[in-house]
């Protein structure tokens, strides 16, 4: 499986489908500890991304970074609150580091590292503060380990996705110290962070787009 521009497009489409399916779940998580708009915002953002992707007459996209840049600018424009700038910056930094026709195992790590660096520099968050960073940090670590062990690019993504999922679940007992949830202090414990959950969804979509390209299709239900 070559992680090329077609993979990147599949990744984005799968993310849009996955976010649409999880819209209510994300909103419910956000309602517990935030302002309850994360599912709606992410769904609107990725719908807009798909519309851009399908826009007739758009310049041909040849590099992975071309697709990621489109995601970045669209999310920044269309997603309100902090999630737009944060995910936008993550995709933008990843785009800058993936200006090539395909990414190899080291390229996957570089892409994820750039995304993490974008989120931390923009959001000033560190691990353990119950944010997206708590899903993305273990993802980068797992991807690095997998790549060092000689895993195929798709397997590197799979390692990252699994670690992000575990990292997101690990936010449940955490007390938030960043973002809207931090206003709740101790009461934020006991709920999964919606930003960490959406990060896990995005990386799961990246993995699925690499491992299972055939199952890709408009609106098709993929098993979680």
């Amino acid at each position: 499986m070559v992680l090329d521009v077609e993979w990147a497009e599949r990744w984005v489409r799968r993310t849009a489908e996955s976010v649409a399916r999880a819209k209510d779940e994300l909103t419910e998580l956000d309602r517990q500890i935030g302002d309850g708009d994360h599912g709606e915002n992410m769904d609107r953002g990725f719908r807009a991304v798909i519309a851009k992707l399908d826009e007739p007459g758009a310049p041909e996209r040849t590099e992975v970074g071309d697709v990621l840049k489109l995601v970045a600018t669209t999310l920044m424009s269309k997603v309100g609150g902090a999630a737009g700038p944060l995910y936008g910056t993550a995709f933008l930094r990843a785009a800058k580091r993936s200006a090539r026709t395909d990414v190899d195992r080291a390229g996957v790590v570089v892409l994820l590292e750039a995304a993490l660096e974008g989120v931390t520099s923009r959001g000033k968050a560190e691990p353990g503060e119950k944010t997206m960073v708590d899903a993305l940090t273990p993802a980068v670590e797992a991807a690095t380990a997998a790549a060092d062990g000689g895993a195929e690019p798709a397997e590197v993504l799979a390692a990252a996705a699994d670690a992000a999922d575990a990292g997101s679940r690990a936010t449940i007992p955490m007390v938030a110290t960043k973002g809207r949830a931090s206003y709740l202090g101790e009461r934020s414990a006991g709920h999964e962070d919606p930003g960490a959950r959406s990060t896990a969804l995005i990386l799961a979509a990246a993995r699925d787009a690499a491992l299972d390209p055939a199952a890709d299709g408009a609106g098709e239900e993929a098993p979680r």
Partner: protein
Amino acid sequence: MRHVGLLLVSHSVRLAEGAAELAREMAPEVAVVCAAGDVDGGLGTSLDRVTDALTALLDGEDAAGVTGVVVLADLGSAVLTVESALELDDELGPRVRLASAPFVEGAVAAATTAQQGADLRTVLDAAQGAADSIGPRPVVEPVETEREESEGPAGTRVEGETVGAAEPLRGDDVVVARVEVRNPLGLHARPAALVAKAAASFGIPVRVQGVDATSVLQLMALGSTAGTILEISARGERANDAVATLAGLVEGGFGEA
């Protein structure tokens, strides 16, 4: 004379326009532009609005007089939006500075400095030094109270802790009720405003957990969330109605439960 321009980025259109009105009054020759509200005009910020405003200021037809732009942003995600706009367009960076400054004071200080023909760095410094204009300490000394300093944001207060110095209600005509908060976020800004408005409409002393029920800030500082029991009390004519009205609002979950 060429001037530095100002961009005011706020979640609220009216907040930005109000601050711009003040700044323009004091600096009539300085271009003061707003990029406020989300894409639909609601509360929020929009990257497109920020980018369009910056581009118009720097490269638009009226841009002849603008040598650079100092940006003031009001709340967290407004700052993120501006940072994103600057990251997205490398050409903006050298000519634009985002100030870390109080929104209103910073805008006025930057505008008056720009009016004098100061350069980008000096206008930025003026904005960032504006917090000092508020003074090292409040002009009015705070009244000593017995309450302990809050250690975190207002929302982290423990349940039942009283804030503020509202006089407790005493007497035979005091009506008291206890109700449970239903909505997850409790008395956050919108519900607190509803309670305060309702409390004020009766024109009698009304308390929630001992604080003045007409004060949005004191209500928010209670940090109540779902499951918190709130004691509502009122004294005087229509005290029954006041307590019943507030209890109804709380028990109704403010339409959020």
